[in-house]
């Protein structure tokens, strides 16, 4: 049987070109070459499969020129016509993970070529793409490379050969919402007893059927007396003090910022801007009130409709930010607002 042909996608860091400072290198095709983690994959494949080409692309370049980069890479992959496309593993590198997910999904959907990737479960690319391509779960840093390659190699061969793919818990891919049957070691009642014992003892357990996402927040009762209420503004639209002093990332934000509104009645292009990389920033940069409506709230303050506008606002970038991070920021911001005696918050997005 002919060897399985594989094309591998990696970023500038794993290609050995450089770190953040080289993240803007455009996509390049290395036909017939095996680069970086590709060597470990090749060793794992043995005689069964070969890497026929490696594509290297800077993470910033990919994310900022997504249409162009995608089209270029898809063209190359189409020409090489591999049996399987592997991207990463990306571990916990956010933009790399998003790039791996994006390109693997595009290869699979647009070219009809099987594609997989691997990353850490909290990588924002995981939530975005786990229902589109198989994403093998890895550790959170490149220290987990050996383990990641082993998992991905085994899965890649099985998938490329067209063998039946079992359930996520058996194969090591992230749950993609597709329910797959398999036989467990223990019968259901014994598993239920084990789960009950774990639950009784506050030990961790994994439900076999996660309930659909219920992360709904019950609305608070309406504010009775708006005329005396303190209202705060919070945004995921990336509005920051000009110059982005906290260096909030344009995507996959790892933090949020707290900024003063004392004496500010109107946001203008000299004092505020957006850090967000997911929408055309021109109009937000010209007048950041379009995202964070300070001007209107100052008017309402003057008219006596609201008591006052809270003197601080909080901002982060929602673009590709992991749900877990967003939750954490939300909880922290909420407790600060509460401590400051804020009565209500207006949340704005983009």
């Amino acid at each position, binding site marked *: 049987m002919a060897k399985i042909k594989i094309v591998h996608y990696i970023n500038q860091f794993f290609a050995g070109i450089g770190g953040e400072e080289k993240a803007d290198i455009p996509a390049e095709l290395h036909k017939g070459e095996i680069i970086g983690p590709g060597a470990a994959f090749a060793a794992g494949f043995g005689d069964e499969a070969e890497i026929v080409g490696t594509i290297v692309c800077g993470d910033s370049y990919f994310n900022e020129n997504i249409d162009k980069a995608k089209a270029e890479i898809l063209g190359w992959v189409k020409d090489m016509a591999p049996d399987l496309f592997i991207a990463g593993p990306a571990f916990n590198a956010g933009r790399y993970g998003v790039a791996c997910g994006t390109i693997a999904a595009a290869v699979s959907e647009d070219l009809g070529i099987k594609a997989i990737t691997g990353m850490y479960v909290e990588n924002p690319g995981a939530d975005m793409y786990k229902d589109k391509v198989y994403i093998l779960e890895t550790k959170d840093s490149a220290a987990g490379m050996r383990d990641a390659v082993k998992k991905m190699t085994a899965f890649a061969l099985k998938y490329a050969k067209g063998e039946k793919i079992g*359930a*996520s*818990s*058996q194969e090591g891919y992230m*749950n993609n*919402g*597709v*329910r*797959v*049957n*398999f*036989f*467990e*070691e*223990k*019968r*259901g*009642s*014994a*598993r*239920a*007893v084990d*789960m*009950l*014992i774990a*639950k*009784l003892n506050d030990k961790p*357990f994994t*439900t*076999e*059927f*996660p*309930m*659909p996402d*219920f992360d709904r927040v019950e609305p608070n009762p309406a504010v009775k007396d708006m005329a005396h209420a303190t209202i705060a503004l919070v945004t995921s639209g990336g509005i920051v003090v000009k110059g982005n002093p906290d260096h909030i990332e344009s995507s996959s934000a790892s933090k949020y910022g707290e900024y003063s509104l004392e004496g500010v009645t109107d946001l203008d292009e000299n004092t505020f801007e957006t850090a967000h990389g997911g929408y055309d920033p021109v109009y937000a940069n010209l007048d950041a009130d379009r995202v964070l409506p300070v001007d209107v709230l100052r008017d309402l303050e003057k008219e006596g409709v609201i008591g006052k506008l809270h003197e601080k606002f909080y901002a982060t970038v929602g673009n590709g930010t992991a749900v877990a991070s967003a939750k954490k920021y939300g909880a922290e911001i909420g407790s600060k607002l509460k401590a400051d005696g804020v009565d209500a918050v207006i949340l704005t997005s983009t």
Partner: protein
Amino acid sequence: MRLEIGKINITDIRFADSSKIEGGVLYVNPEDLKPVVLEDDKLKGVVFDIAKPGESVRITPVKDVIEPRVKVEGKGGIFPGMIAKVDTVGSGKTLALKGMAVVTAGKIVGFQEGIIDMTGPGADYTPFSKTLNLVMVCEPVDDLKQHDYEKAVRMAGFRVAAKIGELARDLTADETCVYETCGIKEGIEKYPDLPRVGYVSMLQTQGLLHDTYVYGVDAKQIIPTILSPTEIMDGAIVSGNCVSACDKNPTYIHQNNPVVEDMFAEHGKSFNFVCQIITNENVYLADKERSSNMTAKLCRILDLDGVIVTQEGFGNPDTDLIMNCKKIEAEGVKTVIVTDEYAGRDGKSQSLADADPAADAVVTGGNANEVVILPKLDKVIGMLDYVNVIAGASDKTLRDDGSLEVELQVITGATNEMGFGRLSAR
């Protein structure tokens, strides 16, 4: 209550001139059993057959599966309120014929599913491919109403199982298991440091072909109550449920309730297994509210720390399951639920008809919509007449080569919601 179950291992079933159990072999003379069936004037004929593990045999449509047992010490008899007096059972000593089952088959309604394959891929999914099966296909008198037919076959199955159980009365058990639960105060004194747990067993109670009986009472008329988990081992709960083969609980599974069995294994070690709570799954919404309220209240009054909840069926019982889970959790009682899934043939649909974040510990018996190909087998016990119309089948079901393309739904016990099997899904 303390119950000893003496296990008599049955290694073969043969037709013979006289009915007896000898050397682990059950010899049956069908002529001895026929009168037991035909004493009900609603039935005019019965055919007995034997199906053994590994044989190329398909049994369909299966109605109920029953394990023959006999009560040798203690109050009452097997199947109280049905064919024995309504004495409270669950203490003393009972002998059970292990490795075999009485299977009632026959088409009560046209769309009734229920397939047991003794070999091939279908055999992997049904627990009853591993038992020696004495199958009885009953023929009703002409123009018998479905209600009467269901009842006649249900009761005939119990009578036959009891008759066979009687053959073991004087035998010595190959193995004996003892199950014992304590009174409330006794349990607290005996296991002061162990968490107190219960088992909430939801019974299918929708109407014709969907009913369950407790000591002879149609369970749709009960309000939730408490049993010693040993009572069901003597047949206190029996099935009158004919549809939803994959996730209905045949009488055999009530008798051998796997949750009860596995909770007893941890009783006195990881927790104190206090009792079984039974509740129903009625069609009427107010009944659902009342029953789930009562169930949660019982958990609270009994000071339980945790419960396992199992359901039966799909669709509106999911609502009962989630109501029970939500309300029991709200009482501060930690809850694990056991269900199965209907996620569509591609596994992509929402699995349950109802859901709630309180249900954070779920055990699943697998996706009942998954498609399986069952090859043509040499012999069919029962009939394949309506196989195209049963749940989980389609107009493509009966294929040219005689094989069946069906969903797991049609296979008896495939996705059992008491956790009887190993099938699961992720």
